[in-house]
């Protein structure tokens, strides 16, 4: 009704949205147009005085198109975005069991600390003498990460997990170049169960990707790796615990074999949260591993970023870490920002992967999380995460099928869709029905090696009562699916702000921005 483009913005006639209201609103759920549809070109929500007259020095490059972005006053802005927020599910509203994503509680102390002017209001290039506290914090965070992983060095600059992968793999490539083996070591081994970022990262910097099969128990076997190793192999990228929620039990033997073949072992650390304080990657033979601060150390996911992906490095790789390097001289800290000064100190940085020195805002949050937990709390968090996943697995194992048999998992429980066969309900349908029950669905169809995969990661933040309700609801759904109540699934979600969305239409005829409606006078011409 507020939609100026004639698109339907009210509920349709079918389903449970069929109770009609004049506005299209449904009590607390408000229809909210695009800001461009309610904004006006002359409206603004800031009070700025026009500067005194001046002669521009823009070299004649003056913008002449009036920009064309409608604005809103402050109260309108507030209401627009608060209403939008109400159409989102979030950890703060319920369990968010996305496997491999680690949606744990985001403590607000961490937000408050990151907003201290001494961290939030300092410029990356202001004199280093004026940011000693910030550099000290980064140095301390590095020390904590080194201790928790048992690795000798950390590159703090990567801006997200995939960016950490890129940095770690670049360090590996630099080490290979330094050994004079760049022309021969061109292949990276990646298990089929890996995150898509692994093969994409390897390919991005010119490696050829060769898949490693997983055995029927969901694990990579050292013999399968050995069969592929040779003088052409640069590295293996292995996720541990893996994407099936299992610890790779051959990992030490795999690391030994990889090293014996002159290659490097990159570990995808996305699931490090399962083992913090229990076992250290450095003790397993890892050469490089990124740590998703937004998973393991609880910096908020923020609807898809920002993340942070520091990458820990072994002695074989530490010298190749990218600029800038952080140095401690007595009680003071300094950034080494140029290749020349780094070389003078015996380092051989492979280059630089981002402007400045990394995600400081995320560092503060992660460090506050670590200080709060301490060594004892982080170990307990990992244990509780594993306990919770197994509790869900135990609660559902008689109704849902586990692809690798009934055995303990790490921090996430994996089911396949074998048990849905003949029901007419797919993994997608089951996930959508969970939405109507008030839950965010689990990760679906990943890992790719498991048919119709459902990967459930509750994290340590869920209470026993929360898990009991979640399990009871999934049991009810599972029994309904088996009893033939397919409509509850194929029509779901019926109670969410939107029913299922037409992704085919979106991809066939992409509409990627709002276009002002053509004025009637022009349209008539």
């Amino acid at each position, binding site marked *: 009704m507020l939609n100026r483009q004639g698109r339907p913005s009210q509920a349709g006639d079918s389903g449970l949205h069929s109770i009609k209201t004049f506005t299209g609103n449904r009590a607390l759920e408000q229809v909210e147009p695009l800001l461009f549809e309610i904004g006006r070109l002359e409206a603004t929500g800031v009070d700025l005085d026009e500067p005194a007259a001046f002669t521009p020095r823009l070299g004649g490059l003056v913008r002449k198109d009036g920009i064309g972005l409608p604005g809103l006053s402050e109260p309108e802005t507030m209401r627009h975005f608060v209403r939008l927020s109400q159409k989102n599910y979030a950890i703060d509203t319920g369990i968010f069991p996305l496997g491999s994503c680690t949606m744990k509680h985001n403590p607000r*102390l961490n937000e408050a600390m990151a907003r201290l002017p001494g961290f939030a209001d300092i410029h990356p290039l202001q004199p280093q003498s004026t940011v000693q506290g910030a550099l000290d914090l980064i140095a301390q965070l590095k020390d904590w990460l080194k201790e928790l992983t048992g690795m000798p060095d950390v590159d703090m600059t990567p801006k997200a997990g995939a960016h950490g992968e890129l940095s770690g793999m670049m360090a590996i490539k630099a080490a290979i170049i330094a050994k004079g083996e760049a022309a021969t070591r061109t292949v990276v081994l990646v298990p089929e169960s890996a995150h898509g970022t692994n093969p994409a990262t390897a390919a991005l910097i010119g490696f050829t990707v060769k898949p490693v099969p997983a055995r029927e128990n969901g694990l990579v076997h050292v013999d399968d790796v050995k069969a592929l190793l040779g003088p052409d192999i640069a590295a293996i990228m292995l996720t541990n615990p893996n994407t099936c929620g299992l610890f790779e039990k051959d990992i030490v033997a795999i690391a030994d074999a990889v090293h014996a073949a002159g290659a490097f072992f990159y570990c995808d650390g996305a699931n490090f949260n399962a083992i913090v304080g229990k076992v250290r990657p450095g003790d397993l033979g890892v050469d490089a591993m990124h740590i998703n601060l937004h998973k393991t150390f609880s910096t908020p996911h923020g609807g898809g970023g920002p993340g942070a992906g520091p990458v820990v490095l072994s002695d074989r790789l530490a010298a190749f870490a990218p600029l800038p390097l952080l140095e401690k001289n007595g009680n003071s800290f300094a950034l080494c920002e140029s290749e020349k000064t780094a070389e003078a100190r015996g380092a051989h940085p492979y280059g630089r992967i981002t402007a400045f020195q990394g995600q400081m805002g995320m560092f503060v949050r992660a460090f506050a999380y670590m200080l709060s937990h301490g060594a004892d709390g982080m170990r307990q968090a990992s244990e509780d995460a594993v306990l919770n996943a197994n509790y869900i697995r135990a609660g559902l194992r008689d109704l849902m099928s586990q692809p690798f048999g009934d055995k303990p998992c790490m921090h996430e429980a994996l089911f396949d869709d074998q048990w849905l066969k003949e029901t007419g309900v797919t993994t997608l349908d089951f996930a959508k029905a969970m939405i109507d029950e008030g839950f965010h669905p689990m990760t679906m169809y990943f890992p790719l090696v498991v048919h119709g995969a459902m990967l459930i990661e509750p994290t340590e933040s869920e209470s026993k009562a929360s898990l009991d309700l979640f399990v009871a609801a999934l049991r009810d759904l599972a029994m309904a699916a088996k009893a033939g109540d397919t409509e509850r699934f194929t029509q779901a979600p019926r109670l969410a702000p939107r029913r299922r969305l037409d992704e085919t239409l979106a991809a066939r005829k992409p509409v990627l921005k709002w276009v002002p409606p053509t004025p009637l006078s022009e349209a008539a011409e």
Partner: protein
Amino acid sequence: MRYLPHTDTDRSDMLAAIGAGAIDDLFTGVPAEKMLKDPVNLPRRKSELEVARILGGLAAKNIPASTVPFFVGAGAYKHHVPATVDHLIQRSEFLTSYTPYQPEIAQGTLQYLFEFQTQVATLTGMDVANASMYDGSTACGEAVLMAHRVTKRNKAILSGGLHPHYAEVVETLSHMANDRVTRLPADVKAAEDIVPLIDSDTSCVVVQTPDFFGNLRNLKAIADACHAKGALLIAVFTEVVSLGLITPPGAMGADIVVGEGQSIGNALNFGGPYVGLFATKSQYVRQMPGRLCGETVDAEGRRGFVLTLSTREQHIRRDKATSNICTNSGLCSLAFTVHMTLLGSEGLSRLARINHANAIKLADMLAGVKGVDVLNPSFFNEFTVKLNKPAAPVVEKLAAKKILAGVPVSRLWPDAGLDDHLILASTEVNTDDDRAALVAALKEVL
């Protein structure tokens, strides 16, 4: 531990329900000899009060921009961010949600991403923008890779006015991927002539405006020369507020526009998190990196939004993906969108005029200081001066007087022979008193 809900009774009840005797029975896959017997060698848990005390102590050792006369720019800028912005991005439903994989319960995130894409495309004068990148420098690296895919060539030419960190990111990526780069020497006065270097091997030319030294550049001739040779023009900016006042790159023929969006909605944060902006022409949309949000309808015909064109991305295309990027800079793009909404065209253009006017005032005052030469023929809110002595020690001396005066070129470009060059920015936060304090202090140390 205050973040962990279980009591010991809960834990033993749950272990019993699972059928495990002890927690370590669930860690059976871990090689027994590698399991840590004791907690790692780090301090034990701390209360909120203790943590706040420690971090407060570290924060107090830094000098925040808003407490001193502040003229530091060169890729990140101090602006006033309205209080509404930070309140909205701290809404639980935005802060603690994930990438919108289930669009039925993520319309809030998806709609603001659609609004963000519209704002970025409109500001840059381009057809389409993505849902953001990590920051401006990584967006620049991705733009070069995209140009290589589009042109099926692999040589990039980087202007000597490109931010050195951005150039280094491109050089590093190119070195690793066996692509070619020609980087021009530091070009303080925007005097370089790139056109003759563009040949039929060239994939793209990367030019920043306002450039690293603050100069504005007309890209039209370079765009024409690129197109004549089948190459793409990548336009870069680090100060997005400039687009409120200057000709957008899209209007000068750029094929890809990338930049840093930190100035709108986001704090300085010592370098991150920021928000990378990425826009291009419609015909290249399937070669774009990063997330894209698109409009569609739901099963009842109501308008809704989804992530779309996902087959470009790593989770589907794996080693053939356009990029390895997985996240965008979601919450920072929300901050951008909220601040941009508050500004509107009206507010943005006025903000840009204030920035420009303040920079003009500063330049004119500095021109009157003995030992200072303002070098720029044109600028927006940032310019370069030549001092009568090396800039780095001067900046340190001013810092000791609690004035943060700018960025010595030597810090980012140590071998350029520009040790006496200093880059200063002046935004709406600077007062006449700030400028007077800077000038007075400079006179003392020069």
